[in-house]
């Protein structure tokens, strides 16, 4: 099983995400944003957190228009798996692979702390290691994590059971407490919290490790 982790100028969680994949048994190849092709035979693309292109213009906007993101779009359209964390979630919305957008936090402050997440569904490769309704604790670290979409889109996400995680105590003003959403084929997950920062006893929290472990097992079956 192989993962590609995209690296933009300003990515700073790329190695953490790669480590999360590796600990779960995936081979990881780092891919520079100027590359024009994804490595052959990859099972999933990871889009890491950070501040791609300095968050200039809008978070994720310039990254979303980089050469490699055309390939990520094609990969997702073909039914490929992709996982975006934090800035990676912002990139996924800017590429329109996932609906909605991430606005400045309602309280205007950058927030870096561990928050409670309610697992809202457990039917995707990303969430099947959890029980629906379970509460886990995962760190957040963002200034622009306030998820928004029009009411029709939010209704559709809920009707199709595509909200993967909700904040138990909404830290950033996100519509309907949304912390992470799935694509319509459930193969792309974008989330603001950082499960790759909760994967090892040394990190003081292993609630994120199940996501990577079950993802790897699911990819092996796929």
């Amino acid at each position, binding site marked *: 099983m192989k993962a590609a982790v995209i690296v933009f100028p300003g990515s700073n969680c790329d190695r953490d995400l790669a480590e999360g994949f590796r600990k779960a048994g995936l081979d990881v190849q780092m891919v520079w944003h100027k590359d024009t092709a994804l490595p052959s035979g990859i099972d999933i693309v990871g889009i890491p957190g950070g501040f791609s292109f300095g968050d200039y*213009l*809008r978070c994720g*906007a*310039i990254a979303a*228009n980089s050469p490699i993101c055309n390939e990520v779009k094609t990969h997702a359209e073909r039914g490929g798996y992709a996982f975006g964390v934090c800035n990676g979630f912002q990139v996924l*919305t*800017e590429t329109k692979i996932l*609906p*909605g*957008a991430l*606005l*400045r*936090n*309602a*309280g*205007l402050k950058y927030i870096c702390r561990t928050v409670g997440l309610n697992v809202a569904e457990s039917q995707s490769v990303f969430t099947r290691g959890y029980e629906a309704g379970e509460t886990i604790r995962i760190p957040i670290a963002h200034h622009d994590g*306030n998820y*928004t*979409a029009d009411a029709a889109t939010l209704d559709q996400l809920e009707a199709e059971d595509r909200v993967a995680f909700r904040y138990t105590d909404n830290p950033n*003003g996100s519509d309907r407490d949304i912390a992470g959403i799935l694509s319509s084929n459930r193969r792309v997950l974008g989330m603001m919290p950082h499960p790759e920062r909760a994967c090892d006893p040394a990190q003081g929290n292993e609630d994120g490790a199940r996501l990577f472990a079950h993802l790897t097992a699911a990819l092996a079956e796929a």
Partner: protein
Amino acid sequence: MKARVHVMLKDGVLDPQGEAVKHALHGMGFDGVDGVRQGKVIELDLEDGTGEDAVREMCEKLLANTVIESYSIEMA
């Protein structure tokens, strides 16, 4: 040829920065302000032959996120 692009959050999208500016203005005694919306102005120096249609395409593809933002173009 220059183009000036104004990008604003759409009506109905909460603008926390605009709200913070409004609160600051009220704190300074400017009570006559009912609302503040904060946006961006992007100025483009264009080569001959690059017209408004091209600028509109730039807005749709990069300069604005039309999920949350609206834009207007001034050619000068």
